[in-house]
């Protein structure tokens, strides 16, 4: 079962809208303040990546219920240039934007599950989940 809502990322303001949406959903689901901060920060980083590297895309927030567990799924999807070397961007300290964005390893650490699919010239789809404990 899932319940979803999304924000189109076109401007810097949409980054704020996406993280506010995520935080509200996280709060509703019953996440504590530390997890709310983790989720909000992860969305902010993913939305900023879309804004910086793809120009536009979408952040989707889904509420998950699986085997009696509740969780939140963040989907960051864009039709941008894709990531040429995924292994490299998953290395700590790798950046192409002059220090902007802590990068995907940081987002992965903040969340429980992290999946990335990217095709050069077609776009990137990142899915990150946090489960309610």
């Amino acid at each position, binding site marked *: 079962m899932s319940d979803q809502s999304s924000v189109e990322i076109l401007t*810097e*303001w949409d*980054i*704020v809208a996406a*993280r*506010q949406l995520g*935080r509200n959903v996280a709060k509703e689901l019953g996440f504590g*303040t*530390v997890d*709310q*901060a*983790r989720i*909000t*920060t992860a969305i*902010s*980083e993913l939305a*900023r990546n879309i804004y910086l590297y793809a120009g536009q895309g979408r952040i989707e927030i889904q509420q998950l219920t699986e085997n009696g567990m509740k969780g939140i799924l963040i989907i960051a999807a864009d039709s941008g240039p894709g990531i040429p070397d995924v292994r490299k961007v998953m290395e*700590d*300290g790798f950046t192409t934007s002059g*220090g*902007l*964005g*802590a*990068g995907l*390893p*940081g*987002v992965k*650490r*903040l969340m429980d599950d992290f999946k990335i699919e990217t095709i050069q010239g077609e776009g990137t789809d990142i899915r990150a989940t946090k489960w309610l404990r």
Partner: protein
Amino acid sequence: MNVRIPILKPKDTLIVSIQWELDDQTALQFQEDLLTKLHETSARGVVIDLTSIDFIDSFIAKVLGDVISMSSLMGARVVITGIQPAVAITLIELGIRLEDVMTALDLENGLEKLQLELEA
């Protein structure tokens, strides 16, 4: 939609209390406003209080880190106060280290620390 963060000046110290979620533009405007205020007032110390902030992403962390380095170039010391547990945890997990930054538990401690630093 653009709001500006008020900067107070008791004696020779600037006090900034960030009370709401920072968007990119507000953060950058704050950077400029703080440096201009330092220049105008010749303040030697700055306290930035983050008690009301419940998350900091890499962009806001970078703006904060930069404004500390910039203030230092102008001869002023900055203390960051009131970082919440959730903020400290997410910053470290995210991989952000605000190194060589003076911090204090709250505004009062921050002002004391700054005073000691400026007298030394």
